């Protein structure tokens, strides 16, 4: 699966995203700098990594969402291409309107880094096909602004359409409905606060994030 990892100034999980993509998706995964106007030919997955793009100044993800490459990412998403936004990447997705809602400061105002348990709520997406419904997986979080918010109608729609893909078993940040990750209406854009790319090697404590990458690979084959 041809993967483009977008690098914004201040991204700091870009290397981790690339490492996971190269390990599990495609040796040829590559970085794309935020000032580029287009994605590399044949890009199948856009990976918006975690970190602190533009230092999280103003609002996390706000400035990155307005950078040139995001036009290309939007076009890719409109074509049905896969987009995965993790942590800061999720914030960029909401700020750019590719996913609904917003992420605000954690309930207790502190940055939190620790493993959390997620329940897989919908296995009918390209990102979750290899999990079983209701399966609980362990994936680390590391964020200060992961408190998901959307107006009640939007939340009702997300719930009704099965767009809530991952839910915290024990809500660490105050997110509405314990939402940890959502997909777009078409199901091709996933944003999540926890870091699946940090949970793909047993050496680092958990392999539960592998399923997401395996699912994507499977989804591509069955397309």
């Amino acid at each position, binding site marked *: 699966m041809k993967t483009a990892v977008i690098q914004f100034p201040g991204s700091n999980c870009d290397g981790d995203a690339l490492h996971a993509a190269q390990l599990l998706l495609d040796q040829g995964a590559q970085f794309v700098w935020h000032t580029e106007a287009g994605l590399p030919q044949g890009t199948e997955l856009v990976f918006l990594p975690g970190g602190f793009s533009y230092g999280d100044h103003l609002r996390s993800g706000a400035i990155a969402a307005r950078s040139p490459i995001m036009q290309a990412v939007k076009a890719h998403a409109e074509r049905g291409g896969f987009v995965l936004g993790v942590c800061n990447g999720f914030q960029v997705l*909401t700020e750019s309107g590719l996913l609904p809602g917003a992420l605000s400061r954690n*309930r207790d105002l502190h940055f939190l880094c620790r493993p959390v348990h997620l329940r897989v709520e919908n296995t009918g997406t390209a990102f979750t096909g290899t999990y079983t419904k209701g399966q609980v997986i362990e994936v680390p979080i590391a964020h200060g602004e992961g408190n998901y*918010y959307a107006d009640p109608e939007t939340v009702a729609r997300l719930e009704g359409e099965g767009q809530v893909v991952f839910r915290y078993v024990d809500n660490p940040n105050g997110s509405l409905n314990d939402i940890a990750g959502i997909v777009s209406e078409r199901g091709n854009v996933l944003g999540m606060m926890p870091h699946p790319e940090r949970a793909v090697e047993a050496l680092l404590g958990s392999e539960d994030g592998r399923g997401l990458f395996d699912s994507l690979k499977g989804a591509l084959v069955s397309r």
Partner: protein
Amino acid sequence: MSTFKAKVFVTLKPSILDPQGRTVERALSHLDHGNVSGVRVGKYIELTLSGSRAEVEAQLKDITENVLSNPVMEDARWELSEQQGEELVGA
């Protein structure tokens, strides 16, 4: 062409819980300021713009609504005043 000084106020929508405001409020009540309530913490941004008034007004509205605030959870308003000569510095 003139120079304008703008002040932008960004606040969380009233319906949204403000954990920071709540924390400040709690801290104040521990400090014997129990008569303080309704604390909300927002952003205050100062900027200087140059151009004609009409242009600058349109631009500021755009910047305020589309960059400086996120309409999903924030309200924003702005004030604009024309600056003369040296007065620009300071404030």
